[in-house]
């Protein structure tokens, strides 16, 4: 038996864990058809770990949903498969190509695949009539996210209305929705990037290897380091360099940059993030850089 906390105080990490587990159980109890949106990134893996804890020793009472862009890093897909197998979870993969075929999204040749994820995701939610979708968003990521409730209501079109959010009091979550609507649920709302890493470290959580420093051929473009690959080739006077790098977020490989780093284990990553001067999205996400309100606009449309 573990003797916990003689002074009846919970560390902030334990408090965050308790809050997230509470949210998972509340949703599983009150929603007819929840689903967990799983990207294979560190946040969705931590989410999965918390869900595992919330229902142990039972299996997860909901499936996982992944939007496959066709541009995911292989290392991420491998880790995903290993998690799914270990938990015996049910996995639904929605691909952009299928969504285009089904008419949920239109490929006009101008829209990035990352943006087409929105339509693909909404199509999958509608098709499966999911009523609640867990997302790994954290409020510290971006200033529009900082405004979002734990239970975030989406209308018939999957849209978020930031000016009309429901009050959210204490930990009394209101899960009422009308037919056709759904709720986005953010169990990691109050976690910071550093909390996530402390937790991965403490729990020795399996995450994709590309989060750790490794040697990779990269090209510098618009101030970001992009990984050389079939879609990313040098243009003009760009040069290919070999560098020790790691990824701070993992998304679509044409949009996600890496950072130079020597951090090969979680402890070193924690030290690195503690002194980082740029946010993880600012450093590495091409998709958030277009305007001050880029994230808010995508959220309103129904982005994760």
């Amino acid at each position, binding site marked *: *038996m*573990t*003797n*916990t906390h003689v002074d*009846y105080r*919970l*560390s*902030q990490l334990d*408090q965050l864990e*308790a*809050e997230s*587990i*509470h949210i998972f*159980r*509340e949703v599983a*109890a009150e929603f007819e058809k929840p689903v967990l949106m799983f990207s294979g990134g560190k946040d969705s893996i931590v989410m999965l770990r918390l869900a*595992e*804890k*919330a229902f*142990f*020793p*039972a*299996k997860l009472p909901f499936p996982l949903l992944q939007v496959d862009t066709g541009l995911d890093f292989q290392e991420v897909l491998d*880790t995903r498969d290993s998690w799914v197998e270990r938990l015996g979870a049910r996995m639904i993969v929605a691909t952009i190509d299928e969504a285009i075929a089904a008419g949920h999204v239109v490929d006009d040749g101008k829209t990035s695949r990352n943006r087409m994820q929105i339509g693909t995701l909404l199509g999958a939610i509608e098709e499966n009539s999911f009523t609640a979708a867990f997302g790994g968003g954290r*409020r510290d990521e971006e*200033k*529009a996210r*900082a*405004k979002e*409730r734990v239970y975030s209501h989406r209308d018939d079109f999957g849209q978020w209305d*930031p*000016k009309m*959010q429901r*009050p*959210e*009091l*204490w*930990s*009394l979550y*209101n899960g*009422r*929705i009308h037919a056709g609507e759904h709720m986005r649920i953010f169990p990691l709302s*109050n976690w*910071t990037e550093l*909390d996530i890493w402390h*937790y991965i*470290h*403490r729990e*020795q*959580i399996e*995450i994709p*290897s590309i989060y*750790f420093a490794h040697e990779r051929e990269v090209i510098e473009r618009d101030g970001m380091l992009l990984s050389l690959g079939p879609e990313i080739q040098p243009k003009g006077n760009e040069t290919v360099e070999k560098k020790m790098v790691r990824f701070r977020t993992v998304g679509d490989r044409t949009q996600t940059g890496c950072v130079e780093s020597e951090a090969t*284990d979680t402890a*070193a990553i*924690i030290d690195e993030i503690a002194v980082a*001067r740029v946010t993880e999205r*600012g450093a590495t996400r091409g998709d958030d850089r277009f305007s*001050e309100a880029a994230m*808010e606009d995508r959220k309103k449309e129904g982005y994760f």
Partner: protein
Amino acid sequence: MASTPQTSDAHTMAQGEMDLLRFATAGSVDDGKSTLIGRLLLDSKSIFEDQLEAVESTSQSKGYDYTDLALLTDGLRSEREQGITIDVAYRYFATPARKFIIADTPGHIQYTRNMVTGASTADLGLVLVDARQGLTEQSRRHAVLLSLLRVPHLVLAINKMDLVDWSKDVYEKIHKEFTQFATKLNIPDLEVIPISALQGDNVVNRSENTPWYSGPTLMHHLEHVHVASDRDLVDTRFPVQYVIRPKSDQYHDFRGYAGQVAGGVLKKGDEVVVLPSGMTSTISRVELFDTEIAEAFPPMSVTVHLEDDVDVSRGDMIARVKNSPKPSQDIDAMVCWMTNEPLKPRQKLAIKHTTRTGRAMVKDIQYRLDVNTLHRDQEAGELGLNEIGRVQLRTTVPLLCDPYSKNRTTGSFILIDEATGVTVGAGMINSGS
């Protein structure tokens, strides 16, 4: 690939295990709440370069003389356009002493419900007043709400001291006025600090402009205010959230009651009662994930096992045989009303209390509270948007409740409009319910 932990910088690693303070800002529009949060983040070096660059360039393009730190938290497009806060922004920072979760709330009366959202979970309320204006109706309303919500610690930050020549008289006058008002409220711990959010005086760094002030800086106070004792460790309350029944070969007979401890300490061997049925049993095991633990206390999320096969389901509550809440269908509470359509007698609503959901009918609206004078208007008859009053409800299911003054979890509820599904009221149960 899982990595193996290695030794790291001791200070950084310790941050995973430090304690947590949640605080919420309050006060009238433009008193400087968002600016103050921006200042706290900036001076505690919690702002990233790209975030600062973004607000600097926005400030410049708007033609401001200085960087508008409020832009660090006013994250919505309409907020930046109007220069006001509309909804709560949650911000995070840590010092070696603590991790902080800040709810920066709007001052505008129209968005009071969002202020209540931010304050409902706070350990500390930070009320700002503009030194030039002193207390306004809105600062009083927010102080009343913080007191009703039983936010145990309060800081009154007298802001914009730079605009009143750092006058000690101004500080003392507002200090006195507030203390007088506060005698009628429930504010166990009050600190009054003269600051300039814009220039940073007494926020993180002690000001040279206020030699007459010997109290703590805001940051020092936030780092040291004692919050551990605010939790109830005596009265055991465990609302059952979810019954875990794996129905697998390996865990064939497993039956665990999952929930978050709302009060007291639960341990193996405790004689307990399950409410509302009143059946008794003994705790046979308390576990956190796959590990048996000696004790569970608030706010842990755990799984509890009982020795006997009693009927327990979501919405039930596990308490001690000699110390349990009385199931009641007649609820007397202070209600904060949050929608345009007023609350009236005989109105029917959905109610959610801990993990229990039912319906409620308004039997009586005893009085409406005037937030300026604290006068109880017994003739009001209804509660309008953002108004607070004492309400009697009759519920379809018995609620297992405590007075809010004893337990913020088992003493609170929300009211939901059954047609729209929107949360329209926040309730705090009075003693004697």
